[in-house]
Structures are given as structure tokens and as C-alpha cells.
């Protein structure tokens, strides 16, 4: 096995200088795309992600329409320049999976019954990727949906936790994701108190699993406050422009 970069010092400082329970810097901007019905831009550490929401609108192709309820479509896409080696812009296996995962994580929060025969399209474009992009994408998409005025039971907040150098850490970055022992992205609806996404890549003991999940949920709650602040800033604090 090749010699790894040291992921954590003995006093628990991680490779990017964070403590084990510290998130990366997160900033969210709402309403950045003029032509979309709702949009958001998130910087989650070095992740830079744009999310745009269109709809509710007519479904094309028509056979996808559901007479009883609206449908949700998600597209997660990484720009060719988002990673160090040029990425082929065609949707990869991984992107197709994440699109599906995002859709299933957002769907429980949306009240689609109000819009039968229509579709809500969510487009997520990763401009720069740095580990944990599915969580960041989910955070941006949830804010963009709220910006579009789609009725929602709750926002969706997501954050990952993982196991690095035998310790449970919050918000795994790219290096830790590549060389760490486990990665667990979690998304919750913070007010409803339900988990909408939980994946686990790696091996954890039962004890570790429990701590990891709790750590991730704690991170989600911090993210929720940032999402909330971004929405409040756009809608309630631009009184005098």
C-alpha cells in the first residue's frame, strides 16, 4: 500500500486544519439565476454548486405525466472543469446514481399532490468538486425549491460524516473521502425530524455507526441554520434597496 498523506495529527487536527467536529465554510446565495423559477448557489468548502429549479410546468414527454400528482426530475451534473482531470461531460454511472439519490431525498419534502400533470425539474451543476458534493447539491437544491415557491413540508439539509484515522469526523473532504475508512452522507428534514437520505461507504461497528449518524445529523442542523439565513436574507432583509 502506498504511503498516505497524514489525515490527522495526534491532537486531532485534520489535513485541512479542521477539528473532528468542524464543518467546512458554507455560504449560500438564493436567486442567482434570472431565467430559473428558483435557484441557489452554494459554496461548501471548495465545492461550488449551482442549483436551478424549473416548474411546476408541462411534462414532456407527455407519457411521463401523472394524473394524480406532480412528478420530480433531478439532474446532477459535473462540469468538465470541476475536477483536476477533465471529466467527460456525458452523464456517468456515478452522476446517474446521484441524480436518483437527490430525487429520492427531495421527494418526501415536497407536496406534489397540488400540481397534478406537471413536473418540477431540478438541475444541479457542480462547478468545482471537493468531496461531499451530493450533500452540498442537496442543500442547494432544497433552497432553490423553496425559492421557486414549491410547497414543501420542510427544507432538506444534508451533511456527511465518516471515519478517518480511526475517529469519527464530521463533513468528510476529498482527501478523507479517498483515503479514509468510511463516508456516510445523511440528509434530514430538520423540523419534521425525518431522515431522507442515508448512504454508507465503508465499514463501521454498531457503536461507530450510531456516533457517525448522530454527528452527521448534528452537522445537518448547522447547515439548516445557514440555509435558513440565506432565504431570510433574500426575502425579508432587502427592504431598502
Amino acid at each position: 500500500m502506498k504511503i498516505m498523506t497524514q489525515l490527522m495529527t495526534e491532537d486531532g487536527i485534520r489535513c485541512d486544519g479542521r477539528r473532528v467536529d468542524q464543518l467546512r465554510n458554507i455560504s449560500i446565495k438564493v436567486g442567482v439565476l434570472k431565467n430559473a423559477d428558483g435557484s441557489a448557489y452554494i459554496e461548501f468548502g471548495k465545492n461550488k454548486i449551482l442549483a436551478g429549479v424549473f416548474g411546476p410546468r408541462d411534462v414532456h414527454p407527455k407519457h411521463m405525466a401523472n394524473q394524480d400528482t406532480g412528478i420530480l426530475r433531478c439532474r446532477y451534473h459535473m462540469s468538465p472543469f470541476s475536477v483536476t482531470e477533465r471529466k467527460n461531460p456525458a452523464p456517468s454511472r456515478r452522476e446517474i446514481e446521484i441524480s436518483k439519490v437527490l430525487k429520492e431525498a427531495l421527494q418526501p419534502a415536497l407536496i406534489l399532490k397540488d400540481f397534478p400533470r406537471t413536473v418540477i425539474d431540478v438541475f444541479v451543476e457542480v462547478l468545482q468538486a471537493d468531496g461531499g458534493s451530493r450533500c452540498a447539491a442537496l442543500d442547494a437544491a432544497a433552497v432553490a425549491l423553496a425559492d421557486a415557491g414549491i410547497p414543501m413540508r420542510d427544507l432538506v439539509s444534508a451533511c456527511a460524516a465518516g471515519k478517518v484515522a480511526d475517529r469519527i469526523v464530521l463533513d468528510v473532504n476529498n482527501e478523507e473521502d479517498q483515503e479514509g475508512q468510511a463516508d456516510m452522507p445523511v440528509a434530514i428534514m430538520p423540523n419534521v425530524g425525518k431522515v431522507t437520505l442515508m448512504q454508507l461507504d465503508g465499514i463501521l461497528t454498531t457503536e461507530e455507526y450510531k456516533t457517525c449518524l448522530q454527528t452527521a445529523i448534528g452537522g445537518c442542523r448547522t447547515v439548516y441554520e445557514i440555509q435558513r439565513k440565506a432565504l431570510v436574507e433574500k426575502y425579508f432583509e432587502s427592504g431598502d434597496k
Partner: protein
Amino acid sequence: MMDVKRRYVIPGDVIASGPLRPEQNVYQEGDRIISTCVGISEIFENAVRVIPLTGVYVPKTNDLVIGKVVGTSPLSWEFDINSCFIGFLPAQDVFGRDYSPTKDELKQRLNIGDLVAARVANFDRSRDPLLTVQDRDLGKIDSGELIEISPSKVPRLIGKRGSMIQTIEMATKAMITIGQNGWIVVSCENSEGLLKAIEAVKMVDALAHTPNLTERVKSMLGVPEGENNDTIND
């Protein structure tokens, strides 16, 4: 007015709990009442609702809307009503009962691209909205300027008991037709009044969430203070 409690909310915020009646844009879980959109919550006489600040137009029966003809079928016109649903205007509504698709040509009356003021006659979740022009002041719009504003801001443009729209109409001598779908037609005989009225409508759209808006619009239009005193500042 006294016991209205207002608060800024985002989706998922618990507005209140207890024996209250959930109305628009909220849902009930247990005894908690939770907001479903970004907006301003109101608790009034045991009813809880949220006035949305964003979102698309959802047709309601009896709404006045402004639609644009986008197509025809043998028996009806199809309208873009700035919503996720397409509005239908049956041909009989315009031609009368003896309409016959072989004899009458729909495009003679309303062509693609025409603007029409119509009322939503019927709408439920199983069918697209049905429009009607069988009323006073409804029908094809021949002249004027079309402005699009956010449908959630239409109530603000009308104002309490029509105060805002009256202020603008009186100050500019313009005729303003407001569709609940956020499409507005302004017509005026002199061009200066038209431009002023358009500017005022756009100002309301941009500053809809700010207090004292009627006063601001008045000062922009140059209406002297103290006129039209029945406006309410909130």
C-alpha cells in the same frame, strides 16, 4: 385588525400549535401547524395561513386572469395563463350556442397571440382550468401595454380595498386591468401617464414586501400628501 399575528416564515417553520384551522399554504401535523412556503404567516380568528412571497399562479374559480392565445382545437382556444396549467376557452362561449366547427372559424375571432381578459369558470385538480368571457369587461384586449409581475404580489398591487390601484389610476389617468395570474394590461391616452403607471406597477412588484408602500408610490407619482386617506399602512 388588532389580533392578527404576523411573522416571516420559511418552509418547515412551526407557526402555531393548538386548536387552530389550517388554511392556505400550511399543513397540520399532530397539533402543530407548519408553513409550506416562504412568506408571511397570519393568525386571524383561529385560522392560520401564509401569504406566499414567491411561487407560480394556481388558478382559482372566479379569478380574473389575462391570457394569451397559444393554440386552437376544433372546439376551443388554448390559453397561456402564466400557470403550469393551460386555460381552455370553449368556442361556444364566444360564438354562442349554435357554434359549429364546420361553419365557424375560431381564428376569425381570436388569433394566436391575442390577449384576452377572462374569468376562471371552473378548475379542479382533475381538469385544466375552464375560462369564460361571458361577463362585463371581459374579452379581447385591443390596446395597452402588458406587464408581467410575480403573481404573489398581485394582492399588494390591488391594495386594501383597491387603494393602491386607485391611487395609481387616479394619478396617471390610466386604465389598469389586473389579472390574478400576474399579467397586467395598462392603457392610457397620453404616453406620459402610461409610462408613469408602468413604472408604478413595476415599483410595487420590486418593493412589495416593504411597509408604507402606498405612500412611496404616491410620492413617486407626485400625489400630494393627504389625498385618498383611506389607505392602510402595514
